[in-house]
């Protein structure tokens, strides 16, 4: 099948989102660059929700466009996670943007929409070129978003660090990909996957180099440990809603392409890489949690917590050859849980740190007396992140644990449990601030904007419902048709 007679209607959600993003961009031009534009924010949320509905509808006809772009159950779940995530980030941003006059609101929303588009293309791609283009749409949008407070010294410094390290990571990914292309003569992941066992037999050195280079680049994008140094700096300097965006949407989309490349490209030769991934998962969990213990800044703390969570998500990838689809279901369940608990926590962090004017941990002092609802919700999110029972985080971690045990990775499962216990300490330092410390003298009761409390409520509801009734989501995953190409 060539590109001309391909079924282009499979791309409807992406095309509609691109059109709506351009529309938002145009409306921004027509209404002048300065000033508050809440209607554009609402329009952006609407366009993301419309796209989410379209993703859901087009999935009944799973298929592919010329081996380049696939629509299947795997892509659908990831796209829904991404779209809901970006919509929640926009809702968190609305109040934040009104307080920061220097941010041009229309551009901000349209670039967020474009980054959602890039992430969607990324998780749907089955070809190295498409994958790279999607990745770069997401990355370049993220560079802009990180530097959006352009008169703010921390923000621009974070942006330049992100551009330099992100560009280097892209070069690494491409260098690895160039060998994959050269030795198979094709950029399609399906063809590469079929040729892989023979390739590793014939050119084992070149293929190992190629795999390592791609691992370095992708490892940077999902911030796993030897390649994590950018994350705390960028997360601290970026506007707080963008920190939430980077730690949730960009990371989950990164896991999406790692899985695509692993499942389509490298699964036939899993003996070669499975141990590397397991070791990286262990190191990521240990270093992320250990450094998080020493942090006093909320955004840096959440960055290290996000690194540790990426380590938990790597464990099922190490178990992938033995567990198959069950591994995917573990990753996606934990991704949904991670999306909800992290975005909920960041909604609270955005409001509290912006009100205090500093992102120091002490800005949470006495939050329970200033806003009981936010304090209780934040406690649930943190407890879920730490993995205590009756929350989505617990179910996700328990599944990953049992998956690792049944894939004969007992040592990894034990490291995971020990590190979860370590993580209690730093999550509880938030809770201690909120409940056991008196508020500062001039702190008044917090005014919670409607959009932000909506995000908190949705995140709270999903975190608790998935903690009590996980089968709700797990049943969907067991009946899902994961990959259309096989």
């Amino acid at each position, binding site marked *: 099948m060539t590109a001309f007679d391909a079924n282009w209607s499979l791309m409807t959600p992406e095309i509609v989102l691109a059109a709506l993003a351009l529309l938002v961009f145009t409306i921004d031009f027509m209404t002048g660059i300065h000033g508050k534009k809440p209607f554009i924010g609402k329009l952006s949320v609407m366009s993301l929700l419309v796209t989410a509905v379209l993703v859901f509808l087009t999935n009944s006809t799973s298929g592919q466009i010329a081996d380049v772009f696939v629509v299947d159950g795997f892509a659908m779940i990831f796209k829904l996670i991404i779209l809901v995530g970006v919509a929640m980030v926009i809702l968190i941003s609305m109040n934040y943007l009104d307080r920061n006059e220097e941010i041009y609101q229309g551009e901000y929303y349209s670039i967020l929409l474009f980054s959602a588009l890039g992430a969607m293309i990324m998780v749907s791609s089955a070809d190295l*070129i498409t994958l790279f283009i999607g990745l*770069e749409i997401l*990355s370049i949008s993220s560079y802009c978003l990180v530097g959006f407070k352009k008169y703010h010294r921390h923000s621009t*410094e974070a*942006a330049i*660090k992100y551009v330099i390290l992100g560009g280097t990571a*892209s*070069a690494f990914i491409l260098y690895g990909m160039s060998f994959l292309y*050269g030795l198979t*003569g094709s950029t399609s992941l399906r063809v590469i996957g079929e040729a892989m066992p023979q390739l590793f037999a014939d050119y084992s050195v070149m293929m190992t180099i190629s795999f390592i280079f791609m691992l370095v680049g992708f490892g940077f994008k999902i911030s796993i440990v030897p390649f994590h140094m950018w994350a705390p700096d960028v997360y601290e300097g970026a506007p707080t809603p963008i920190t939430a965006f980077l730690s949730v949407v960009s990371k989950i989309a990164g896991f999406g392409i790692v899985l695509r490349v692993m499942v389509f490209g490298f699964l036939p030769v899993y003996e070669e890489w499975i141990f590397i991934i397991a070791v990286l998962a262990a190191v990521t969990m240990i270093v992320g949690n250990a450094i998080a213990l020493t942090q006093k800044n909320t955004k840096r703390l959440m960055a290290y917590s996000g690194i540790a969570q990426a380590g938990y998500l790597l464990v099922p990838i190490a178990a992938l050859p033995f567990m198959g689809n069950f591994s995917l279901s573990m990753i996606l369940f934990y991704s949904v849980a991670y999306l909800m608990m992290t975005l909920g926590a960041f909604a609270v962090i955005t409001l509290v740190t912006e009100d205090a004017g500093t992102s120091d941990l002490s800005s949470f002092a006495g939050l329970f007396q200033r806003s009981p609802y936010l304090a209780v919700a934040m406690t649930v999110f943190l407890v879920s992140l730490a993995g205590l029972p009756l929350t989505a985080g617990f179910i996700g971690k328990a599944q990953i644990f049992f998956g690792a045990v049944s894939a004969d990775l007992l040592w990894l499962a034990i490291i995971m449990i020990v590190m979860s216990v370590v993580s209690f300490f730093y999550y509880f330092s938030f809770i201690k601030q909120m409940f056991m410390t008196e508020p500062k003298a001039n702190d008044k009761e917090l005014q919670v904007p409607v959009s932000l409390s909506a995000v908190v409520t949705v995140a709270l509801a999903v975190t608790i419902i998935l903690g009590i009734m996980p089968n709700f989501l797990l049943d969907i995953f067991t009946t899902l048709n994961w990959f259309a190409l096989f």
Partner: protein
Amino acid sequence: MVPISLFLSLAAILFCIGLYGVLTRRHLVIVLASIELMLNSVNINLVAFSAIGPFANISGQVFTLFVITVAAAEAAVGLAILIALYRNRNSIDVIKHDLLRW
């Protein structure tokens, strides 16, 4: 006919020079130029494979065009951020930008 290993070695050397530049140079414009060097070494790889590789075909050159385009976009964003940084801090020396650490 020139063997493909020569082209691959050239690309590998350029990639290493670029990486060395990113890691050691203090001038941010040179750091960005080094990233371009790394991306261009990938282009040499792709074009070499596309012309005289074991499975020579056109898609390597298509890939190269995409890489060039994306590299240009990345450089544009990088330089814009560089200018914003210079206006805030009056310096583009890597060493001086250390507000965010540990």
